[in-house]
């Protein structure tokens, strides 16, 4: 399939980056970009293809991160096993919150707000329960061995997150070509018509949410391994929910490459504004916000939309 070829080509190109540069600044930057792209692709499945905007993807990210962190720290579970279990835990949270929300028929802003509330509830609980270390947080032990999913050099981390992103791109592409994906888009375009046409709207939305949560959860587990420290604000804070939605919306909502493009653009913008303004606190973010507004004003369908229009 032509699309798969494009995906593999892009991934192969990106994979060469550690071979041409040994700059850790660049590698670290790209790792963060890819992490956001992954989390954003998760959001994109539900929000872009499914039209259900979530403001609480932190719930899945944080659950996965804490799961793998706690399992490693308190139960001596292997980090790779923690990854699998973390993804499952994040997906489970997605399924549960999805079931509750969709069962109640929540849509649009109501749905967005309830996801926000779920993430906040988890954040508050995590900030007081002993198992997460409460306020002190969870510090994963430094253990630089591949078996412990930790590496001395940035490059293996880069390739792993790139691998995750590649899988997420393929999932998005499969989604576009599959019947499930068609149902999902139908629900997005007109939920009532879809229901009238015989689609089990609840199951479709729930499936999308679970998949979305699983992809974002993978990002959470990766974050835990890369930064080795979690607290309630990091795991469940609004920052990750915002990053998760910003990337796909800027890059092109409901497209395969949207989240990746968006993550790159958003992060590059952040760095560029810092470079331009030097060390004056706040000024770089002022410019960042202004550019954001301008991008939305002049490229409402996102970067991918811009590209399509001029293609």
């Amino acid at each position, binding site marked *: 399939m032509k699309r798969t070829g494009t995906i593999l080509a892009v991934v192969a190109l990106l994979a060469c980056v550690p071979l041409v540069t040994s*700059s*850790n*600044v660049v590698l*670290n*930057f790209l790792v*963060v970009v890819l992490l956001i792209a992954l989390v954003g692709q998760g959001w994109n499945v539900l929000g872009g293809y499914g039209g259900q905007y979530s403001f609480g993807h932190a719930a899945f990210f944080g659950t996965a991160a804490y799961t793998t962190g706690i399992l490693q720290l308190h139960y001596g579970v292997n980090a790779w096993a923690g990854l699998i279990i973390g993804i499952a835990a994040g997906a489970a949270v997605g399924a549960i919150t999805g079931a509750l929300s969709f069962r109640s028929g929540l849509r649009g802003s109501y749905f967005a707000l309830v996801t926000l509330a779920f993430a906040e509830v988890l954040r*508050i609980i995590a*900030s*007081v329960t002993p198992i997460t270390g*409460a*306020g*002190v*947080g969870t*510090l994963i*032990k*430094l253990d630089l061995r591949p078996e412990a999913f930790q590496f*001395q050099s940035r490059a293996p981390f880069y390739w792993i997150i790139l691998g995750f992103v590649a899988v997420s791109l393929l999932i998005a592409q499969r989604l576009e070509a599959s019947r499930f994906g068609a149902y999902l888009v139908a629900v997005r375009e007109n939920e009532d018509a879809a229901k009238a046409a015989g689609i089990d709207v609840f199951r479709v939305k729930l499936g999308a949410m679970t998949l979305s949560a699983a992809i974002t959860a993978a990002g959470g587990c990766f974050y835990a391994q890369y*930064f*080795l*420290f979690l*607290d*309630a*604000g*990091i795991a469940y804070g609004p*920052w990750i929910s915002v990053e998760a939605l910003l990337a796909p919306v800027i890059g092109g909502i409901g497209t395969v490459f949207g989240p990746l493009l968006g993550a790159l653009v958003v992060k590059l913008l952040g760095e560029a504004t*810092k470079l331009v303004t030097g*060390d004056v*606190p*706040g000024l*770089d*973010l002022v410019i960042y916000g202004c550019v954001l507004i301008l991008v939305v004003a002049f490229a409402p369908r996102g970067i991918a939309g811009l590209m399509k229009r001029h293609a």
Partner: protein
Amino acid sequence: MSRLNRRRFLTTTALGAAALAAPAVLRAQGAPVKVGILQPTSGAMSYSGQQGRIGAQFALDEINAAGIKSLGGAKIEPVFGDAQSTPEGGNAEVEKMNGAGCAAVVGGYVSSICLAASQTAARYDLPYIVDVGVADSIVTRGLKNTFRLGPGFGVLAKTAIENLITLNDAAGKIAKTVMIIHEDSAFGSGLAKLLNTQLPEKGFQVIETIPHPTPTRDFNNVVTKIRAQNPDLVIPANYYNEYVLLARTMQQQKVRPKAIYSILGGAASSYKFVKEFPEAAAYIMDCNHWFDPKNPKALDLKKKVEAKGEFFTYEVYMNYSAVLLLADALERAASADRAKIIAALESSTFAGHVMPYGPTKFVNGQNQGAAPVNTQVLGNDIQVIFPAKFASAKPVFPMPA
């Protein structure tokens, strides 16, 4: 040797010779030493980040007047980084500082940022000096590159309790019951946990421990609870804004325990708080970071900082001291080589800082002499009440009604 190999051999040798000669060349020229100054200058902790940078800048100005002598008068060139009050932000900045060729990094402020940043720095054997971050875990990870000049909350809790006992015994053991009000992230929770273990061991009864988020919009219920349970002591441990709100609410509801004995109280030893709310601040005690009041250099710095219209907060003098510590290490290492700096820090006996710690001695990265000081707001000024050798006033305990 084939022609190809010989050429490569010659080139490599030439380059190698140049590389060996380079440090000598640099030294002779006194090329500036880059040092990363990492602070959360935007985001929720921006005030502390801003103050930290001010302290670092004062130190830099002082050092750069003459430069590092053993490096030919080389100046320290700061590479400022904004951690944006998040660990990822701190991380990214450390990567940049490493990429820019910094010899060391100073700062962090928030424990979670210090944890992430020092760990990243460890990958490159980049020396990292923590300015404030009090989580004990910062220095117990076995990272050779991480050094902390000030105390961790283990020492803080221990000293605070010791001084409390001294205070209480001298007054005839009038205090027995305690309520702890703490912020619910790393330092508050860590401290509260230690207090809950150690206070009962020393004969105090903790009636209630109340965690609260940062930010907290209102303390009226907390204060109602304090009034209802009437503890002898209230122990707050939180950040500036919440501390001020709590103290103001207590004043408003006319709640006066025998003492407000803060430990890392966000505003309890803050000139800004004392100036803006003298009534609410009166008689409040704190066990916190403080400068050495008998050190003329410290007093001189205080004057200079206040002349600039800034408040002399702990972030200022702790960063000032941390940067001076680094300069001393550079001086003794006579090199900008990271491993040499780490070695110099490890063996450091630096006494040119303005903290009441004595000469530095690092074990596993923690300065052994680091300890907090007890202060009390008396006569609209902040006086030191413990330890005796730094004391400028006698404690007033209990608080007058």
